[in-house]
């Protein structure tokens, strides 16, 4: 196989895996920001928490990797409800700046807490054998883990798409994102809807955090370092849009991977340059509301 | 100087499939006193937004004093003599009434570009601001914060801001809406006393106000001009009555136009 084709396939494969991670972790943030206009910079902390739960479950309790992901997602999702009800609720009417600062404060507290319990050194997770190693297709060996990530991503996309487009609740969410006041006047309980979306979104973030361990390693600073990426995906995709988040994750994931493959040092540049270009042309993102 | 202060030609605006303004033609001569009426949802405020530039039309033209301003910004139109009041007060709530009016005058005269002199050092601005406040009986409230005033008085400030621009064309969006009737007569007195050269378009639901003030009336229905004419003609028009089914004069006010 010609060299450039191999590189192209590698870029696509790795880029796709990265994009799946970005999508899974960011979709919750996009929908909650689109629904309530609430800037939640603690979202990265939820992802980090999920990651650490997976670490503890697999290493200390010997629970399998995949079940741990599920448990982490559910746990963080449930815990997020406490945050939403107890704290965030009071700031829905506050200014952007106040929301930014409050949630950054929470993120700092989370980072400090997890540093205390887990230490600052990056952790890894023991993977089941079927996720270790490669799938060999002759011209290139593809890491099984990334293949799994892509597969899982596709499954989740289908599930979310179905939930969003075909179920009653999905319709209500879309309506509320589009025009909250109108949705409320039609009888949709937007508050409850938001709590639900927030919980699911945080759970997905936790899932993403757990999946990220194998890709990037997990340390408490994950909460802030990767937050920038999530925000970028959300802004570029458009608030409240499943399609937008997916498209943005794909574009940014593939571009970033391509940049790192082809331009090594300058690679990190790409994702930000793409962001600036997209936002200058379409400030509301790919599929955001005007 | 042309006699036509404001002209709107074939103005259209759509939001997706929804056409909110349809082929609207409107002319305001110098010194016009025209009322824009129509049932709720007719697109009256949208039309004002299109004229002032807060909204861009899908097609059509807007001419101010004979000059095509369709492509110019809202701020530029204001600088060329187009002023408006908003249906819901848009004031600087954290500042005093006096500072609100001074802000307008400073912008108008370019004084606001000055980064060095201290606010309040130019007496002429203060004097002029107080003139407007005097006329609207707001002098006693001059040093109060806007957000501390009752809504009716805030509405007067809203009008003061538009007047302070010394406009050639003035668009008033339901100026008396939300004002208790004890105070609304003051607003009408002020509107009456305005420079006869200013072209005024007033959106109103209250027919008493309309018939007292207007020399011409434009009726807007579902985004299109339904009919135009003198108050007498409109009064006598059966179709207008039909379109206003259930909305007799005095019953309206304070809703989307």
């Amino acid at each position: 196989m010609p060299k450039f084709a191999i590189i192209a396939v590698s870029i696509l494969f790795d880029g796709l895996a990265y994009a799946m991670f970005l999508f899974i972790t960011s979709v919750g943030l996009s929908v909650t920001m689109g629904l309530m206009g609430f800037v939640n910079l603690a979202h990265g902390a939820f992802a980090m928490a999920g990651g650490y739960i997976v670490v503890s479950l697999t290493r200390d309790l010997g629970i399998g990797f995949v079940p741990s992901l599920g448990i982490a997602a559910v746990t963080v999702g449930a815990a997020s409800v406490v945050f939403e009800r107890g704290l965030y609720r009071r700031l829905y009417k506050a200014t952007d700046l106040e929301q930014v600062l409050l949630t950054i404060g929470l993120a700092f507290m989370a980072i400090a807490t997890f540093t205390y319990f887990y230490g600052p050194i990056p952790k890894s997770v023991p993977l089941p054998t079927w996720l270790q190693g490669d799938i060999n297709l002759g011209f290139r060996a593809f890491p099984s883990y990334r293949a799994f990530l892509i597969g899982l991503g596709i499954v989740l996309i289908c599930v979310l798409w179905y939930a969003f487009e075909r179920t009653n609740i999905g319709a209500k969410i879309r309506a509320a994102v589009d025009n909250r006041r109108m949705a409320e006047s039609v009888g949709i309980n937007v508050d409850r809807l938001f709590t639900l979306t927030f919980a699911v979104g945080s759970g997905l973030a936790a899932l993403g955090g757990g999946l990220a361990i194998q890709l990037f390693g997990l340390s408490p600073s994950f909460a802030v370092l990767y937050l920038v990426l999530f925000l970028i995906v959300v802004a570029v995709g458009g608030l409240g849009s499943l399609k937008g988040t997916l498209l943005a994750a794909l574009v940014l994931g593939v571009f970033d991977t391509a940049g790192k493959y082809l331009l090594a040092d300058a690679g990190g540049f790409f994702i930000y340059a793409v962001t600036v270009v997209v936002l200058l042309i379409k400030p509301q993102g790919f599929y955001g509301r005007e | 100087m042309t006699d036509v202060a404001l002209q709107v030609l074939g103005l259209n605006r759509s939001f997706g499939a929804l056409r909110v303004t349809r082929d609207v033609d409107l002319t305001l001569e110098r010194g016009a006193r025209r009322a824009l009426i129509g049932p709720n949802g007719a697109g009256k405020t949208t039309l004002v937004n299109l004229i002032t530039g807060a909204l861009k039309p899908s097609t059509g033209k807007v001419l101010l004093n004979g000059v095509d301003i369709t492509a110019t910004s809202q701020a530029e139109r204001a600088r060329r003599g187009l002023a408006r009041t908003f249906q819901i007060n848009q004031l600087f709530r954290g500042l005093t009434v006096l500072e609100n009016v001074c802000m307008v005058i400073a912008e108008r005269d370019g004084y606001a570009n000055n980064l060095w002199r201290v606010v309040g050092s130019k007496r002429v601005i203060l004097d002029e601001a107080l003139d407007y406040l005097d006329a609207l009986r707001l002098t006693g409230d001059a040093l109060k914060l806007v957000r501390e005033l009752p809504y009716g008085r805030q509405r007067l400030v809203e009008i003061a801001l538009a007047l302070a621009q010394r406009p050639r064309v003035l668009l008033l969006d339901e100026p008396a809406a939300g004002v208790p009737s004890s105070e609304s007569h003051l607003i009408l007195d002020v509107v009456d006393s305005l420079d006869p050269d200013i072209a005024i378009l007033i959106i109103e639901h209250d027919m008493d106000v309309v018939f007292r003030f207007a020399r011409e009336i434009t009726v807007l229905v579902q985004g299109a001009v339904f009919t135009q004419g003198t108050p007498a003609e409109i009064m006598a028009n059966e179709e207008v009555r039909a379109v206003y089914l259930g909305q007799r004069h005095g019953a309206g006010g304070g809703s989307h136009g």
Partner: protein
Amino acid sequence: MSDTALSKSVEPVSTASADRKAMRERAADYLLRRHRLGWPELLPWAAAIAAFFLFPDRMTFGGQVLIMVLFALSLDLILGYAGIVTLGHAAFFGIGAYTVGLLIARLGWSEPISSVIAAGLVAGFFGFLFGVFLLRYRGLTLLMLTLATAIMVQETGNLRSDISGGYDGLPGLVISPLFGHFDYDLYGHVNYLYVLGVLAIVFYGVRRVVHSPFGQALTGIRENVRRMHAIGSPVHRRLVTVYTIAAGIAGIAGGLFTQTNAFVTLAVFDFDVSAKIMVMLILGGTGRLYGAFLGATVYMVLEDYFSKMSPTFWQLGIGLLLVLTVLFAPRGVLGLFEKAAGYFRKERR
């Protein structure tokens, strides 16, 4: 009588011309009082000078505090007065810092005052450039654009680490003596007074701008931008102007930073730095200039004390402080003071 929009005057409420004159005087007096220099404003300066005599061995730290005050001040201009929320202000700080650094390291130019002025001009230029394009946007879009551009500036430095020294930085930057005379002594005495002097001069300028008609217009933009458009205010031009000035001041702070530390690395562009001054400003209180003084001082002192004990506890503490501030003191410590003063005034009546 001025040529107003009124053709005939509606009967004014106080027909007596003496009454009107009285109100006129009251109004003028009120406005001037709001903007005139008041005696409480001397307190921070007195404190800064007192610190010089009370803590002679902490003057290097003192210099750092003053630099952060200047930096936070520049953010207050755009955040507190114009209402622009940005996550990339560190970019200008870094640009200023590197201007001074590169002048010394690559061009051998180490005269302090001209270097700092250069830092301000270069940073201001970039402020203008970014501002023209970015300030057409608000909200999350602007947040992300400012963040992304700041990171790109940092990445550019990283790319050309041969010039910038990368994350290891440009070391050993020796500053020439101030005014050709005063050597930078080991304990940072000269440096402290130098930074204080720069701060005072810049602050005077900032204060004038804030109390000018332009500054008033900024408040108008922050309070109700819709209204500003409707009265003909060239909003974008105003925002770019203040952004340029703020960037220049941040650049000056950055230049002073390099001079104080004799060292600069790419870490000056970190998001952490942008976040830090935001926290300082919120703590002190936005839109009131002196909030920068208060917030920066409190933050730096607390950080110095707690992060030495345990960086983790410091992070927890600052996070908690942030949360509590937003929930209970959204207008910062100055806001709390104002509230208290309000109670006292009410009591007196």
